C-alpha cells in the first residue's frame, strides 16, 4: 500500500478531508475491505492448494513423547493430545474445510439461480408453487433443518455440504427471481423480444449478465456463511470424523483440553475466523465497487 501511495503523490484530491491514497487503492474502487478481503482470501486459497506441501510435519503422525507442547519454533501452533503438530493439521485441513464450504455454496448457487431464473421468467402458477416451497424451507431455522437432514442422511462431511447447500437455495432463488422480475421490465429485454429473440436467449444472454453482480456479492458473503455453517456442524459432530484434520472438528476435539492446552482450540478457531472474515470483507468490498449506490 505504501509503495503505491507514493506513486500517486502528484494526484490532487478535491474531496475535503480525504487523504491521498494509492493508485492500487483507486483501482480497487477505493475499497479497503476489498483489498484486505482479497489478500486474506488469496492466502487461504493458497493454503488450501499448497497446505499439504508446506506442512512441516505429517498431520496424522503421533508422537506421544511430545504431547501438549506449547507453540514453539519447532511446532508453531503447538502439539495436541497425541503429539501431532497442530500447524500441519491446520494446513492440511485448509483444503477440506474450504472445499466443503465451496461445494455447499456451489449447490446453493447453482440450484438457487436456476430456480430463481425459471421462477422469475415463467411466473404464473409455477412461480407461486416454487415461492411457497421456498417459504416452507425458510420457515425451519437453518441448523435445525440440518439436524433433521443429518438424522436422515447420517453424519459425514458430504452430508454436511448437502445440508448447508440445501439451506442456502432459498437465498439465491429469491434474489435471482427478484432481479429477473426487475430486469424483465427493462427496455433492453423488450427490444430483444421485438427483434425475435427466444426465451432462452433472452434469459441467458440478456437477463443473466445483469444479475451477475448482485449474485457475486451475495455469493462471496454466502461463502463466509458456508464456512461458518460447515464448521459449526463439524463442531457439533455431524461432519468430518476424527482423525481427519478439519477445522471445526479440531475445535471440538480441543474443547476438552481447553483448561491446560488453549492453543489446541486457538489455532483452528482463528483459521475459521480469518477465513470467514476474508470472505465477508471481500463481499463488502465487491458490493462497494459493483453497486456505488450503497457506498456512504
Amino acid at each position: 500500500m505504501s509503495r503505491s501511495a507514493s506513486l500517486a503523490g502528484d494526484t490532487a484530491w478535491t474531496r475535503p478531508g480525504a487523504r491521498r491514497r494509492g493508485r492500487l487503492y483507486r483501482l480497487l474502487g477505493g475499497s479497503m475491505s476489498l483489498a484486505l478481503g482479497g489478500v486474506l482470501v488469496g492466502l487461504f486459497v493458497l493454503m488450501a492448494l499448497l497446505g499439504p506441501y508446506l506442512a512441516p510435519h505429517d498431520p496424522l503422525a503421533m508422537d506421544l513423547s511430545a504431547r501438549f507442547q506449547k507453540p514453539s519454533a519447532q511446532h508453531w501452533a503447538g502439539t495436541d493430545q497425541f503429539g501431532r503438530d497442530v500447524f500441519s493439521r491446520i494446513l492440511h485441513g485448509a483444503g477440506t474445510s474450504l472445499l466443503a464450504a465451496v461445494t455447499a455454496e456451489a449447490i446453493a448457487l447453482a440450484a438457487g439461480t436456476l430456480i430463481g431464473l425459471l421462477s422469475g421468467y415463467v411466473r404464473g402458477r409455477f412461480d407461486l408453487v416454487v415461492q411457497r416451497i421456498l417459504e416452507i424451507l425458510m420457515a425451519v431455522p437453518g441448523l435445525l433443518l440440518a439436524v433433521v437432514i443429518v438424522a436422515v442422511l447420517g453424519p459425514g462431511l458430504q452430508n454436511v455440504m448437502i445440508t448447508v447447500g440445501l439451506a442456502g437455495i432459498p437465498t439465491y432463488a429469491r434474489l435471482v427471481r427478484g432481479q429477473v422480475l426487475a430486469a424483465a421490465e427493462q427496455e433492453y429485454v423488450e427490444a430483444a423480444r421485438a427483434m425475435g429473440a427466444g426465451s432462452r436467449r433472452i434469459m441467458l444472454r440478456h437477463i443473466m449478465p445483469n444479475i451477475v453482480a448482485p449474485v457475486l456479492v451475495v455469493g462471496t458473503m454466502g461463502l463466509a456463511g458456508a464456512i461458518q455453517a460447515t464448521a459449526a456442524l463439524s463442531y457439533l459432530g455431524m461432519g468430518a470424523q476424527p482423525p481427519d484434520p478439519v477445522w471445526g472438528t479440531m475445535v471440538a476435539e480441543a474443547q476438552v483440553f481447553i483448561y491446560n492446552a488453549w492453543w489446541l482450540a486457538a489455532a483452528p478457531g482463528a483459521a475459521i475466523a480469518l477465513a470467514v472474515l476474508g470472505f465477508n470483507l471481500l463481499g463488502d468490498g465487491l458490493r462497494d465497487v459493483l453497486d456505488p449506490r450503497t457506498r456512504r
Partner: protein
Amino acid sequence: MGRYIAVRLGAALVTLVAASMLIFVLLRVAPGDPARLMYGLTPPPDAQLEEMRAALGLDQPLPVQYARYMGAALRGDFGRSYRSHEPVGSMIAERFPRTLRLTLAALVIATVVGVAAGVAAGVRRGSWLDAATMAAAVLGVSVPSFWFGMVLILVFAVGLGWFSVAGSSTWRDVVLPAVTLGISAAAVIARVTRAAMVEVLTQDYIRTARVKGLAERVVYFRHALKNALIPVVSIVGLQMGYMLSGAIVVENVFGYAGMGQLAVYALNTRDYPVIQAVVLVSTTCFILVNLAVDLLYTLLDPRIRYA
C-alpha cells in the same frame, strides 16, 4: 388493517402446517424402524415388534399418522423418547424456558449493544469511531460462536472466575452463553442501525430541526433515532429467529441444558421423537416471531400498504 392481520395469520398457519409435514415426512424416511429403536439394543421377537408397531400407529397410512401426531402434539403430547422412554412433552417443557431465557437475554444484549454502536457510528460518520465500530462489526459476524464461547469461558470463567464454567440453573449461567449468542446479532444490528441513521440524517426534517436551533442530542434521539429504528425492528426480529438456530451451537459449548443441547443429544442417539418435537417447537417459534415482526412493522411504519 384487520384484514391484513387475518391474511398474515392465515399465511403463517399454512406455512406452519406445511413445515410440520416436511419435518414429519423427512423423519419418517430416516433409517431405522421406530418400533425396533424403542427396544434399544436387544430386539424382541417379531410378534412383539408387530404389537409395538400397532401401538405406535405405524401400521396406519402416513397421512393418518401425521394427523394423529399433530392432534396429540397440539395437546402437548409428542410421544415418548426412544431412549429414556420419558414423555417428550415434559422434556421440552423442562428445557424450552431455558432456551427462551437464553435467547431473550442474547436479544437484549444484541439490541442494546448493536443500536448504541450503530447510532454512535452513524452520527460520527467517517470518524475513527465509525471505522472502529464497523471493523468490530465485521469481526463480530466472522468469529465462530463456538470458538468465541470458549474464549469467554477461558477468560471470564477460568481466568477471572466471575462466572461458572458450565451450567443452566442461575442467571449467572446465562450471561456468557447470551453474550456468545448475541455477538453476531449485535454486529448485524449495528450495521443496519448505522445505515439507517446515516440515511435519516440526510432528510429535510432533520435540517429543519437543526435550523430551529435544537440541541444535537435532541435532533439525534428525538428526531433521527425514532425513524431510524424502523428497519432495525425487522432485523432484530430476524436475528431472534437465527438465535433459535445459533442456540444449538452455543448451548453445546456451555453445557447449557436447553433445547439445542437436547437436539444434538437426540441426533447422536437417533431419538427421532425428540428431534421431531424440538424442531417442530422451534419452527413454530420462528414463524410466530416473523409474524410478530411483520405486524409490528406495519404498525410502526404507516407508509407500508396492507397488501
